[in-house]
């Protein structure tokens, strides 16, 4: 099978639009709300989830035929937990600032529904390479929403982007935008725009 055959391309592009993990499947919402009050943690979180989803997918796909059916969820969890721990340790050793900023949310990637969803739905039935593409696609789809919402909330909440002040509003802090509730409303708006303009029901 060619590296970028039609199916493989679909494995990568579907989660970006037609089968988007947040916009269509509405998975992984909790962490999307929690880390998006500023842009930088949102970007790092998106990256971390992309890396972990991709590699968890590959590992599960490689050992998929040996996994006993009755404990497959446990096996998946062990693989994800191991990967998350490794990523969190690496972040702590090499980009300490960012790991401090993300604090508990790196650990909470373990409970991200997107991961378990992809492992169950895709990696258990497919070969490693398509699984890898599927993982990367889903990770990027997730990161995309985090970045949109993060940028919006940081800009309208405190007038800055990535920590650089763009509008000077030191005494005026739009607390409404930095509250987690606003993230839910924003994600709702993004879903609405997506359904109206980009997503056609089959």
């Amino acid at each position, binding site marked *: 099978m060619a590296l970028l055959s039609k199916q493989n391309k679909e494995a990568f592009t579907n989660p970006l639009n037609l089968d988007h993990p947040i916009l269509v499947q509405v998975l992984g919402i909790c962490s999307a709300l929690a880390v998006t*009050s500023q842009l930088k*943690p949102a970007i790092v979180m998106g990256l971390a989830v992309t890396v972990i989803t991709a590699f968890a997918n590959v590992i599960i796909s490689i050992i998929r035929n040996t*996994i006993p059916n009755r*404990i497959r969820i446990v096996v998946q969890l*062990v693989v994800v937990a191991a990967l998350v721990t490794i990523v969190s340790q690496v972040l*702590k050793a090499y980009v300490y600032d960012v790991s401090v900023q993300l*604090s*508990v949310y790196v650990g909470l990637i373990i409970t991200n529904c997107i991961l378990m969803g992809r492992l169950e739905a895709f990696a258990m039935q497919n070969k490693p390479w398509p699984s890898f593409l599927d993982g990367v696609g889903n990770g990027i789809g997730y990161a995309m929403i985090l970045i949109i919402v993060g940028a919006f909330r940081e800009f309208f909440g405190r007038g800055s982007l990535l920590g650089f002040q763009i509008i000077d509003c030191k005494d005026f802090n739009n607390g409404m935008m930095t509250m987690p509730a606003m993230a839910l409303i924003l994600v709702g708006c993004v879903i609405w725009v997506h359904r109206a303009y980009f997503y056609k029901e089959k």
Partner: protein
Amino acid sequence: MKLNTNSNTYIIIYSTILVLIVAFLLAFVSQSLKPQQDANVKLDTEKQILNSLNLRGLSDEEAHATYEKIVSFDEAQNVYVCTLENGDVKYVLPLKGQGMWGGISCFLAVDNDKNTIYGAYFNHESETAGLGAEIKDNADWQAKFQGKKIFADENKETLALSVEKNVNNETTVDAVTGATVTSTAVSKMLQEQLTKKYMDFLKN
């Protein structure tokens, strides 16, 4: 021969091997990254102490060099004694408390009179970004502590330093907007820890 992947023996052997592999892998990663992580944590503490002395935005090497030059740790009092470049002596008190979601901590730098605050730096484990986390991220808010008094009077009778909503006077700092619980926690940490751990030090 096809393995019966649903037999009990297979499941037990499979899970044992899997767990062993993962355990060794994690132990190996943790061991090999530990020195680097410890160095990061130490450097981070040094930077926090320098932040409380209003020496902010230093690069890693600068921070370490400056720290080695001006700060020494007094173990008996649990206080960092700092001699600034102009000869002034400041004391940095490490404080710890409980925030909204996890621990919070503070380095409080006081002048030689052990009453006027020279600078402050706050840190937290898991406060909400943009709200409670402002105690760490918002340098302007931390700057509000400069010049505040710890005690209400010159005789150092009553400890008065606190954080309160919409109050801004000699001993009180205005709370962070949208972070009432964290601000109250900061106030409580300052009051409790100064009373419990540093009363003798501050009064002498």
